[in-house]
């Protein structure tokens, strides 16, 4: 049995997401309230397209919402996305709902209101831009739990500040730990007296956006 996914609103996002989900063999339905958008969407093979306002109960019913495994609300309005997810969850008992949120301050509230997964596009994009501009070539950053915690991958070169130092000699911010050192084929769980060498890759876990300070301290880069 194919997994069924319903996408609502968000023309461009829905289009690329639908295509990629269909390629992975999901049964995908989209709801869009614009006729022109619907026509473009209907060019995608094996995609079911429904014209209408997805925050209305009868439109969701037309899309067979009760049979859906996942409902993803992608409209540009936070309030529409909330209503879509709550209708799906509370009225039609869909087990997983995902909402796009513009206002990062509402993420917590959306979770409390019962949405299973909340994605903040603005946050995600700022994080990517920050990463590209601030650490390009220096480190790879992976935000976790809505970017409250970051996992960073930091390569140590011969010009890095931390080279040939023991861990206890480096003053890292409190919110940062070096979780692992990748050295050649080996991965080392570091101790206070572990020596950092050129070619090492440090795996850093940080909270409170302290990774930038830590990266400066380790690499010497600004």
């Amino acid at each position: 049995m194919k997994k069924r996914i319903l996408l609502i609103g968000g023309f461009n996002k829905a289009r690329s997401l639908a295509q990629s989900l269909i390629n992975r063999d999901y049964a995908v339905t989209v709801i869009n309230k614009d006729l022109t958008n619907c026509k473009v969407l209907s060019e995608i093979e094996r995609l079911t397209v429904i014209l209408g306002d997805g925050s209305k109960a009868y439109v969701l019913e037309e899309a067979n919402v009760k049979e859906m495994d996942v409902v993803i609300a992608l409209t540009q309005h936070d309030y529409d996305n909330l209503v879509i997810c709550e209708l799906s969850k509370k009225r039609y008992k869909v087990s997983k709902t995902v909402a796009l949120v513009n206002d990062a301050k509402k993420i917590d509230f959306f979770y409390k209101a019962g949405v299973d997964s909340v994605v903040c596009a603005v946050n995600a994009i700022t994080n990517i831009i920050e990463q590209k501009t601030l650490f390009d070539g220096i480190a790879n950053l992976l935000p976790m739990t809505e970017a409250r915690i970051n996992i960073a991958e930091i390569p140590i070169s011969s010009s890095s500040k931390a080279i040939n130092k023991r861990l206890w000699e480096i003053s890292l911010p409190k919110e940062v730990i070096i979780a692992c050192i990748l050295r050649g084929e080996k991965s080392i769980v570091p101790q206070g007296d572990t020596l950092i060498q050129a070619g090492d890759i440090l795996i850093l876990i940080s909270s409170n956006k302290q990774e930038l300070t830590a990266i400066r301290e380790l690499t010497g880069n600004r």
Partner: protein
Amino acid sequence: MKTTLISRVKQNKYSIIIGCGRLGSRIANELSANDEDVLIIDRDEEAFRKLSKSYGGLTLVGDGTDLALLKEANVKKASTVILTTDNDNINILISQMLKIIFNKEFIIARLYDSEKDYVYEELGIKTICPVDLSIQELNRYFKNRG
């Protein structure tokens, strides 16, 4: 005599109305005429022209779905919040924020689409649905007609 005395006691009620349309503006006018403290919020300043000349409450221009604005409006102090924007989904979002984030007790929301009242029962938010009210009233007429 007793009743007048009671009604003269300054009521310490503070109501917030979000959405200054026909319904919102009339409620604001009436509460204000009853000597209650009222604050009405709308994103469009022009909307406040619907308020009567004798309206003695406050007005605030801004987006009612914005947490910062709700804080500015001092929702914590409000005894009642009434949601009368013309968008059901906005009314739903705000009323839930008031309940979940600000723990407000008395929230009333106008809802055009009664199929959307799924969350209100469990959260204890009161709703007013114009269609339901109209149908009740029509039924009354039909009954009276005999």
